[in-house]
């Protein structure tokens, strides 16, 4: 999968499992040869930089607003996007990404409102859902299966 461009689009980092899953997913995809970029707001970027201070798990970190602007202006695009969401804003950003990008969309839905969010999604995507806040194991296991499929 060398050269396949993957965007991990992170939402508000207030739900703990987001950061750990983002680090895990980025690392696994990087090891499989994907070209992975992680996008988020300032809080997301700071959390990732402190957690992964040597850039071992995340090779590329970018500002979310700037990334969307670049996609809209056709300066950039991705082949695959994992859109993380645990609230309405995350879903709104993912719907925007779905509309402006050619990327195949994977919605990573977690947190206490995961089921309601899953039902609210109207754009075409693969949904990976785990109603968890603190324990990332179930979401990790579901993502492992998705990554196996993608790597085929």
């Amino acid at each position, binding site marked *: 999968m060398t050269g396949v461009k993957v965007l991990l689009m992170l939402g508000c980092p207030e739900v703990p499992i987001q950061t750990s899953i983002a680090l895990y997913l980025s690392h696994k995809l990087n090891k499989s040869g994907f070209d992975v970029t992680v996008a988020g707001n300032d809080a997301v970027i700071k959390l990732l930089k402190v957690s992964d201070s040597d850039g071992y798990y995340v090779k590329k970190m970018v500002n979310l607003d700037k990334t*969307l602007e670049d996609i809209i202006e056709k300066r950039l695009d991705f082949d695959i996007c994992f859109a993380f969401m645990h609230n309405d804003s995350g879903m709104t950003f993912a719907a925007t990404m779905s509309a402006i990008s050619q990327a195949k969309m994977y919605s990573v839905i977690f947190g206490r409102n995961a089921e309601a969010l899953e039902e609210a999604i109207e754009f075409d995507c693969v949904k990976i859902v785990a109603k968890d806040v603190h324990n990332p194991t179930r979401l990790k296991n579901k993502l492992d299966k998705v990554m196996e499929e993608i790597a085929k």
Partner: protein
Amino acid sequence: MSCIEQMKYTIHLQKTSFKEAREYIEKNSDEVYYVSPGYKIFKDYYIIGVPPIAVGAKGNSLIFPYTKPCHGSFVLSIDNEDSIKEIDRLRETDKGKVTTSVKKSKSPASSGAPLASYGDMWKK
């Protein structure tokens, strides 16, 4: 930070869902236009949203949704020379326009009817 945050704006709704923001704009604007995600307003704000995205005009004010990852969706309005230009631009484009009289009845966005035109607009 987009230019919006440095402009003089009015907050009509805050920390709400995008759907509620859309409904507020549809109910509280003289004219409602529907734009695609990423539609650029003012100098550098690209609208984030779930299509169809309602943008309204009320007098010289442009009413629009503004979404932040950690704070939900807002409905903002801006009334200045630039908002007049933006409203004129929407009128010129005039796609998916819903007038006040029409929106008092069921608008396409809330009727549950197929949204062929809006769907086609953002899926392309």
